[in-house]
């Protein structure tokens, strides 16, 4: 996506905050780490918007996001495969009780999340950007600074490994 005009930080936070948080959650598998990471990303975005020049906004935003994650991993020396909390569904912030089918999908998602965390970071990142965030291969390539062919390969191998670990 290309943004023509400068946009405000509040607008970015509202329109992209949920995507950033979900990206962070799927990468870390931990609600506390995800919240810390999303906060870090949004603060970096606020600082970065001052010098942002219109262009590929998605590429810029996700570059910031992945750099924040990698910096966080380095800073905390955290292993990329952080253990999951016992119950993922406690992170579901819906104030009303979830219907049975939603709870079932969350339990299925639990296994999938574990499998995601077991993927090498490069594969996990591209798979999440594609299937959770909905970025195109070109946008992922711009964010990760690799050729589109590499993105294609990472997504495919990541999905293949996920499929094998779920069987």
């Amino acid at each position, binding site marked *: 996506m290309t943004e023509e005009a400068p946009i405000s930080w*509040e607008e970015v*936070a*509202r*329109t992209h*905050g*949920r995507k950033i*948080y*979900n990206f962070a*959650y*799927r990468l870390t598998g931990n*609600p506390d780490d995800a*919240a810390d990471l*999303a*906060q870090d990303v*949004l*603060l970096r975005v606020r600082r970065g918007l001052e010098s942002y020049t219109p262009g590929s906004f998605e590429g810029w935003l996700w570059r910031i996001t992945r750099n924040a994650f990698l910096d966080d991993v380095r800073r905390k020396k955290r292993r990329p495969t952080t253990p999951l909390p016992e119950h993922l569904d406690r*992170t*579901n*912030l*819906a104030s009303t009780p979830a219907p049975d089918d*939603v709870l079932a*999908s*969350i339990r*299925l*998602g639990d296994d*999938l*999340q574990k499998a995601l965390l077991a993927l090498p970071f490069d594969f996990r990142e591209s*798979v999440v950007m*594609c*299937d*959770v965030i909905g970025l*195109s*291969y070109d946008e992922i390539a711009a964010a990760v600074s690799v050729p589109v062919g590499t993105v*294609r*390969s990472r*997504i*495919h191998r990541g*999905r*293949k490994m*996920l*499929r094998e670990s*779920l069987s």
Partner: protein
Amino acid sequence: MIGHVGELASAYLDGETTPEESERLRRHLAECDDCRDEVADIHMARSALRAMPILEVPVELLESLDLVPNVVPLRKRPPMWIAAAAAALIMFVTFAAALTPDPVGVPLIQVSHEYQEQSSLGSAVVPNVGAVRAERIRE
């Protein structure tokens, strides 16, 4: 060969192959059980990933960024007198605009029509200002 064509499977499902690659994949799948299995596996993983629940941003995070004052009021129902006044105003302007064509009235008429299309209650329903605003923010 199988791995190479199989690797096209993800890109194909994502609509990221060229027309030539798509054609090559389709031709190959017609005669290769292994690659068909691989495409089915990739399709399953892709579907499962895309069915993962989307989580809401924790309120604590919004609070830490001072975003709550801008967000929370939009989720609350406006006081009854504001809703009633807004409804009366919208009805008045809508009817006035309908009687006298005036460009100023167009946006409100559009809002009113959009709302009616979504509602099963028909033309008796007027837009709820809070609901319309919250919908925009959610997007």
